[in-house]
């Protein structure tokens, strides 16, 4: 009976020690590799834009293409953005929101939201259409402060985008480009 107990104790020691020692020997020249596998470094490179298969950071903000369009009848405007999916996985832009602010006066003119969710395949660039409606106060602001300007400089503030369940919020300093929107109260 004692021999059985001794044998079982020896087996217990062996099955604990052998995998640990074996792994330590295998990684004796790179102990950090025991905890940080090479795949993790590759993923980090992909995320920061250092990977071969990527072109810039995967966390870059969308860029606006073309001029925003305005429908006077409904007082709604639409702007088109392009978003590069630098990740090696398909993404879905589930929502996008922000406020449009007058660049010169810092006046909130209205909000913006994504017209519909957009799926973008890995490495591809997707087109997002952002819709918004000018408020009554915004129309007054356009008329009173920018009545003689055909286009008004605006910036997108409080920008937030939900990408496959991950929400990215950018403050004004991260929105590198200001936009020009048609002045709905242009008197020229």
């Amino acid at each position, binding site marked *: *009976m004692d021999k059985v107990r001794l044998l079982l104790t020896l087996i217990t020691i062996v099955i604990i020690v052998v995998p640990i020692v074996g792994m330590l020997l295998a990684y004796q020249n790179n102990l950090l590799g025991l905890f940080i596998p090479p795949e993790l470094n590759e993923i980090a490179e992909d995320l920061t834009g250092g990977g071969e298969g990527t072109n810039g950071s995967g966390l870059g903000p969308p860029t606006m293409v073309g001029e925003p369009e305005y429908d006077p009848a409904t007082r709604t405007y639409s702007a088109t953005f392009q978003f590069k999916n630098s990740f090696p996985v398909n993404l879905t832009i589930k929502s996008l929101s922000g406020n449009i602010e007058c660049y010169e006066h810092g006046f909130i003119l209205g909000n913006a939201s994504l017209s519909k969710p957009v799926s973008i395949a890995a490495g591809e660039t997707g087109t997002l259409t952002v819709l918004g409606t000018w408020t009554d106060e915004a129309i007054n602001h356009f008329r009173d402060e920018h009545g003689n300007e055909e286009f008004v400089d605006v910036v997108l503030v409080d920008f937030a985008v939900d990408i496959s369940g991950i929400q990215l919020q950018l403050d004004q300093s991260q929105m590198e480009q200001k936009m020009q929107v048609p002045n709905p109260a242009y008197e020229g």
Partner: protein
Amino acid sequence: MNAILTKFNWFGLAGGVTTLLVIAASMFYPWWQLTVGDDLIKINASPVNTNFGVLDTSFTIPFIWALNVIGLLTLLLSGVAMIIYSVMPTKSFAKPLLDFGYKKPLFTFLFFIIGLVVVTVILQAVLNFNLPLMGSTTNTLPIPFASGVTLTVLLSAGFQWSFWLAVVAAALCIAARLYHKKVATTQQPAVTTATVPSTTTAS
């Protein structure tokens, strides 16, 4: 009927078989799973098989892999020991096999839970990162070298059915240890005593 019930340790047999089933299930179904966003990051954890999936890239951490091998071998030997013991509970080697086998599923379960809790506490204390053990929560992550950018992630975690199967296996093995007393007592050979009448001789 009673002899059949006590010939084997049925709890031990069930515990041993369930332990082996736990090993098989844990290879494919994690005990605990964490997902970030819409499956952008996924962590599948069990004492037998732990892997990480980040943006469709799956990998393991070598040190955790070694711990998983220990967990796998421990549970495997425990299950086999429990089965051998259960069919021969009165043999001389049975009690050491039971003592070896019945604790392992419980200890594996406890180490797994303690490991998860310790990781959660460390992440909370060091990185102020709230990792849920069960349910969902949102966390705001700092992005290095990108001031003005806030990343908020939805984390969902939960214990899977294989975890509860491990709980059943541990409970059955403990029940086997308790039931062993009954099996051992019943299988004791009957001791007959006879009273020898004393004879007195008159002198």
